[in-house]
């Protein structure tokens, strides 16, 4: 690494380390995987979260607004995913300069040529693989850490691999900091800095795999480490118009495998998610939010 790059990255890391100070909250009540988060009205949600998670009401309000739009757009369908979204503090995973846009319908830069996907895409993709508690999930491309944090609310076996070392370290520090502050659920996220192409054989096989990095083919190792009838999802295409490829490792009657490619809509042509926003209590479409 060039000295100048190193200094730039160090400066970036230093700047990032300042971030939690502005939004830091200590979790007053230990995490309860079965706790019922109110998601029918904004005030109850914020009150509950402040009381149980000690988070900033400003971000909680933004999270709930985004949540309502995601429900409207069917980005999250089931209660477990709704809960997972609402319990994941996205603001902890974005760069300081993007804090004001943490809950926008947009992907954001997180440095190193990597983005944090928009909340709608994370919701859609995770909902589509229907993660059950206890299932082993592997994420290739930790990035900001938000996707795995979301997954940690669905299962206790989340494994994530990041190829870019300084990013992997930064995100690990984010997790560690959050765990220290009482977000014990993120303790179930195991992360490593490695080449995700080869998967994580020692902790596999996996029920579900999410690949969030650009590839020109599906790595054979990942297909091998997927359990029979396991599901893998991979967003393909430019960040603003990604289409999610869904791959199923189908086990045939004779015990051999057949790999089936599809999308997460199972053959339906579905409109791209429009830009939507909340104006007062009204959800306003379409793309031109």
């Amino acid at each position: 690494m060039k000295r100048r790059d190193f200094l730039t990255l160090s400066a970036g890391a230093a700047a990032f380390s300042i971030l939690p100070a502005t939004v830091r909250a200590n979790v007053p009540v230990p995490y309860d995987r079965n706790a019922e988060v109110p998601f029918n009205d904004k005030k109850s949600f914020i009150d509950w979260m402040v009381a149980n998670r000690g988070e900033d009401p400003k971000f909680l309000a933004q999270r709930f607004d985004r949540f309502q739009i995601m429900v409207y757009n069917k980005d999250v369908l089931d209660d477990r995913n709704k809960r997972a979204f609402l319990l994941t503090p996205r603001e902890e995973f974005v760069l300081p300069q993007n804090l004001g846009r943490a809950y926008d319908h947009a992907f954001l830069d997180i440095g190193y040529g990597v983005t944090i996907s928009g909340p709608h895409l994370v919701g859609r993709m995770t909902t589509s693989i229907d993660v059950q508690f206890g299932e082993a999930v592997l994420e290739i491309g930790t990035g900001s850490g938000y996707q795995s944090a979301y997954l940690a609310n669905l299962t206790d076996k989340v494994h994530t691999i990041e190829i870019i070392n300084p990013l992997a370290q930064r995100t690990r520090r984010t997790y560690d900091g959050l765990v220290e502050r009482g977000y014990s659920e993120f303790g179930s996220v195991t992360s490593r800095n490695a080449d995700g192409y080869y998967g994580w054989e020692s902790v596999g096989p996996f029920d579900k795999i999410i690949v969030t990095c650009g590839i020109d083919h599906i790595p054979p190792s990942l297909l091998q480490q997927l359990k029979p009838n396991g599901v893998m999802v991979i967003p393909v295409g430019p960040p603003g118009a990604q289409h999610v490829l869904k791959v199923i490792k189908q086990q045939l009657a004779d015990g051999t495998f057949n790999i089936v490619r599809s999308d997460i809509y199972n053959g339906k042509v579905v409109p791209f998610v429009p830009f939507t926003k909340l104006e007062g209590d009204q959800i306003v479409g379409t793309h031109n939010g």
Partner: protein
Amino acid sequence: MAAVISNSRLTVPSLEAPRLAHYLAVGLIAGAIIALQIAVMRVFAVGSWSHFGSLVVSLAMLGFSLSSVVIFAGKGWFDRHWQGAATAALLLIGPLAVGSNLVAQTVPFNAIFLVSDPAQKWRLLANFLLYLLPFLAGAFFLGIVFLKSRTAFGRVYFADLTGSGLAGLVVLVSLYLFAPETIIVVPLLLWAAGSLLWFLAFGAWKSVVAGVVVAALSISGYLMLPGLLGIPDIAVSQYKGVAYARNFPDGKRIYRSVSPFGDLQVYASSYMHFAPGLSDNAAFGMPEVPANTYVGMYRDGDGPEGIMRNLAPAEQVYFRYLPMHYPYVIKDKPKTFVVQFGGGISTQAALNAGSTSVTVAESNPMTLRAFRDPVLKDVTGDILAEPRLKVIDYDGRLFLANTTERYDVIDLSLADSVGLSNPGGFAISEKYAYTREAMLSYMHALADGGVLSITLWNKEEPPKSVLKLYSTVAEAATTFDPKGAANDIFAVSSYLSTTTVLFKRGGFTETEIKTLRDYTKSMSWEEVYYPGMTYDGSGAQKVLDDYRASIFGSGQDATLTQQPAADATAPANPTAPANPDCDPTAPADPTLDACAGAGGDAGPQVLPATEMQRMTWHALLTGGWGKLAGDYVFDTRALSNDQPYFAAYVKVADLPRTLDRLDLFQDDWGYLLIWATLGIACVTAASLVLLPVIFGWRIVFSRSRGKLGTILYFACLGLGYIMVEVGLISRFTVALANPTVSASVLISSMLVFSGLGSLFAERIFDRARTLLPLVLLAVCVLLLAYGFYLSPVLDRIGAYPYAVRLLLCFLLVSPPAFLMGMPMATAMTWLARLGKEHLFVWAWGINGCFSVIGSAAVPIVATSFGLSAVLQWAAIAYLIAIPAFFAVLLPSKAPAVRLVAA
């Protein structure tokens, strides 16, 4: 500076009789401006994406119009203080070029966030304004010089054009010597030389000293300031392919060469994996591909193209799982031709499949040079030295068009393509290897029973490029074999991966079809077309409607257009875990299928994308393609030599609907940007043209007759000239194989010969009324002829050695270019002779404005109507200029008066 100006003022009061040194200086400064244009384009190409560079630079040329308006408004002042103003403008060019470039690196805009992040458009604007500054200074200098040398306009114009033209060649050579991070040195050196010559011509010694100091500071500042201030030489976007290679812990650059063909770099890292289109079944059928098998090749930071190490024999089963293996499934020991060498993977696949000989073409000499370098020889096991291999060092398409050799297999696999989505979008670039004419050349070069195999990325949903490819191959096949085309095609695809089309000369046999189908099944790829394939078109219209609604619908259409998932009624897989959210009796969900979410679901029988591809082939080969293409959401027209574009998917009629959903068209931004450029250019140019009208029409022009005709004349020249220049750059890429080289040669040739034309025009000034219309008519006829007959000529030229190609291309442009140099010089001289001084200044600006509009219009005309149309439109512009010219010749009612209001 005051001393400099006063000193200069005392020396020479006028420029009515310039000396040789003046002409040389003007030529060098004009050359510096052209060189700066190309250099800034290179900075953008390497730092972000070249089409944004085109946007910024083409708009920066509006500086010429802006300076014209200012000089127009303050003509009296500029007449009096011309030498001080020219000196100041001249001395500012260099520092502004250096400063602007440096500051621009601190405000890099990130193309991928252009829509989602409001701050990005301001950064783009900042880049534009910054780079505008040096061009503005240059434009002021040249504008003042033209103003003060009205009577010698033809000669000064000759110097201007010739200097610009020769600078194109200087930059071309310099691109071998200077890397993108130092390329701005070239315009700085030209500017420094021009400035010193200018001051020396006046004997202004203090100015010479000032010039030397400013030039030395500028050049050393350009080279040293980035290091001293910690600002990158070029702020390379972290989203460029090469940035990722640099981020890999063991990423290491092992090769670099800079040339007009681009900045070619090769990185090695164990983190690179390359298997374009690899079958998913490889996971269970072949041993793991060994680690550290690839190095990545990047051109201008884009990539990688994988270069594979020499595999051990046991590992070579890998090739069988790549789609480029298809032709070898039915061809044993073939004589093979690979159309584009690229990273060499197709060549390796051909050798591995047992080809008795492999002829491979590569038109980029830098690629071949890289593979002959000891470092890459070591990586590839010196693949170019393989005894079965024969290398053709020019375009494979042109070789096949001109050869009598016949081949059993011709392969065109993933050429020119890195496969991964380019987050900055793709520039509008010519893909001549994929045109209908190219396909016909390939088909003609097949031996009896020979197979043409084309593999392309299939990463778009809804499908775009692949449908263009299908319609191109089908058009060529039905031309080549009008009766049997339906038996000649076999096509497969893999969802969001690749597609492969096979064409067999003479048609596939039953046995071959079965062999290919078995292979397809063993690889889990989808059949899209084979002779005899049954087709059910009952759902066709719905797929078309759904795709249109998915892009241009309101978002609520989902519930209206959704169809039950093909597998929704299938019995649940007993191995699938229970899904508590699945209620089969609930209304069908418009988006996610909760019932199908858990594992065990094999997905639908046929995906819409696959269905669309099948519909396409059926319609192409049996009829109905016109309606289907009309109903489909994106443009699917075949590529031809006249319209060789994969990009520009959005139909023109749909353009207004893209505005509120630009994020969906990120891969087509190169195309949308040219519309944006045209829009901005038109608005800005209109403002600049109208300003003098508003402020000076009555006062200044009341005595000038033929105002509207004069405006029209110079608008036509501006449009016509630039359209020929830019249109021919695209056209000549056929023979020169590289857009940068083509641009340099075309710019040089056009400007040098036009310069000569403007010099020669002195001889017709007095008989202009009769001769110039003839010249304009000749230009018109020549352009029309070039439009119709250039293509086959360029095809022939393309088969010669590179140096001969350069020379022939340079000369081929000369006849129209020479004639096109006359109209401007003649008309400007007549404006000066008739005393229409304000029109003289204004005409210069109008010409500049319409040049910018014309250059923005070229890619739009080319993608919509074809490259021939560009020349035809230019021809029409020159035709319209004929009657307009007589307006230029109308005498003033009385001598022009000074602009009092200004």
